[in-house]
């Protein structure tokens, strides 16, 4: 099911883009970038819905009624939950609106990742899996494309990347992945006037853990995956900035201190 619905179509799309680009040197890297853009465009409504939902939840954290019930029913979790549901209904907020699109996108992101790995076919067994994938659509004649040309700029997309500087292997891509992930998470981090805002605290933790985790992946795994991470992060930043909600002040030291949420002005 997963193979048929996610991996095969995505890998085929990736190979199709690679073929359209001429399947020469550097084209697989470009294909990954275009492929990521196409998938991000398809999932744009989901992302927009997620941003909107997160923003609504964020605004709720600054709502007086909301803050009052937090204090009033701090020791009565059941009553607090009832009151929270009442406020959700009154304000027409779906508390799952921000996380549901993320859950729906999760398989797509994993599929994207697996498709890139599949297309690179680094071992004989991986190549055999790729053979299965391309044989599903024999009319596309992808056999002639294999193996893909994994050279992109200075990188071999099938291997972890580093640049030797004064005898030291600097993992450039891993650093860029970590940096773009940090910027994206900081920009999308909610601002809060409420010092007890748990969602803001969680976002703050995420902005530390995610760059480290993705940077670690980029350090150890094929650099084709890093190209995907960077493209995806940059598109996320652009998309968020396009909504006018990007909080650029978060990038500065101490920039997340009690600033009003921009969209609260409306």
């Amino acid at each position, binding site marked *: 099911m997963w193979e048929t619905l996610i991996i095969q179509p995505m890998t085929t799309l990736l190979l199709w883009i690679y073929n359209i680009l001429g399947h020469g040197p550097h084209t697989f890297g470009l294909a990954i970038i275009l492929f990521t853009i196409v998938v991000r465009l398809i999932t744009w409504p989901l992302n927009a819905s997620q941003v909107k939902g997160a923003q609504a939840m964020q605004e709720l954290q600054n709502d007086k009624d909301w803050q009052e019930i937090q204090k009033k029913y701090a020791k009565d979790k059941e009553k607090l939950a009832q009151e929270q549901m009442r406020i959700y209904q009154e304000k027409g907020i779906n508390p799952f609106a921000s996380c549901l699109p993320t859950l729906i996108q999760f398989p797509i992101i*994993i599929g994207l*990742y*697996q498709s890139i*790995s599949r297309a*690179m076919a*680094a*071992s*004989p*067994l*991986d*190549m*055999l899996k790729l*053979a299965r994938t391309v*044989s599903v659509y024999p009319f596309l004649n992808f*056999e*002639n494309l*294999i*193996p893909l040309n994994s050279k992109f700029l200075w990188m*071999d997309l*099938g*291997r972890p990347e580093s640049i030797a500087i004064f005898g030291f292997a600097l993992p450039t891509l891993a650093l860029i992945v970590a940096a773009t992930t940090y910027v994206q998470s900081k920009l999308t981090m909610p601002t809060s006037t409420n010092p007890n805002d*748990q969602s803001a*605290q*969680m976002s703050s*933790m*995420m902005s530390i*853990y*995610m760059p480290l*985790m993705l940077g670690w*992946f980029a350090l*150890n*795994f*094929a650099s084709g*995956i890093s190209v995907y991470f960077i493209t995806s992060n940059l598109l996320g930043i652009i998309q968020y900035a396009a909504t006018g909600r990007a909080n650029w002040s978060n990038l500065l030291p101490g920039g997340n201190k009690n600033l009003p949420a921009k969209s609260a002005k409306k």
Partner: protein
Amino acid sequence: MNMKKISLISLLVLGVFVLSACSSRTAVNTWPGLAADSARAYLANGSEIYAIDLKTGKEAWHYPESADAKHVYFATPVLTEDGQLLIGSEGTNHAFVSINVETGKENWSEPFLGAQGKWVAPPLVFNDTIYAPNTDGFVYVLDLQGKSVADPIDIGGSLWSAPSTDGKLLYIASLDHHLHIIDPATNTTVGEPVDLGGAAPSSPVVTADGAYVGSFTSNIQFIKPNGNHDTVAEAANWVWGTPALDGDTLYYADLDGNVFSFDTASGNQNWTEIKPDGPIVASPLVVGDQIYVATEAGTFFALDKDAKIAWEKDPGGDAANIYTTPVASGDLILVAPYKGDSLLAAYDAAGKQAWTFTPEK
């Protein structure tokens, strides 16, 4: 720590596991490599190489003594006349190792300065020289003591198969869609690379007149030493394994599961529609009057030369696949299942199982 923080950290840990599981850098991600001499079978399986006594089916030795990330073997081991077992590692230092076949001790190990890729291809030993193809596109040239004796030969593409030789020239197939011919006297390529139209993952089979090679273009091509080439036989899907030549008859198989018998003298197929039970990656093996074929479905077949099935076995159990080319030694035919109940099984020509090998834990 509140529930939300616990949930968040749990999600991150889950994410690490999910992404790790689907990464392209899985520790062991290929099938076993198998070789044999008259006394032992040598099986490269993941992080270990096992020597198995052919009489008893018991382990004679294994290398290394304890598995680690430096040792991950994708390639088939190769025996030399002076008692070495040669194999390259996919492990962290890309070492190319020589092991004493009697003791299992390491003779030498080259970290291979300059080799950028992993070792999928077995080497060829020719005129006391080791020709070791790497996935970085170079063939490394060593003496039998493991010292470089010439600059690496730049072939291009990813090299997954051993060179073959007619005693004069070396023929090496590349995933770059070409067959390259090397003159071992100068360690340089001869003429232009021969365009096969698709990637060639396995070694050519060489005759006095030239070489037969299969590829992802789903056919067999014949290449003359001067580079002239023709498609001589067709297949229904990719031809992965090296064809087996027996007299004038060329046996080969494809990923659709077809087994072909091609008469190179007349240019005609001897059979039609011989399709055992699944895709075939392993090369056919011809011993005496039988052709041995192993399928991805995990079945091991013995066919006679009229394509009649003499017997079939299931050496690895229901969940196993077979991708490794079977090997003959003495009266035994050895077959190594992938993800099977046992790592190696030995049969006689009548299909009677002599033993199976499973390493002690």
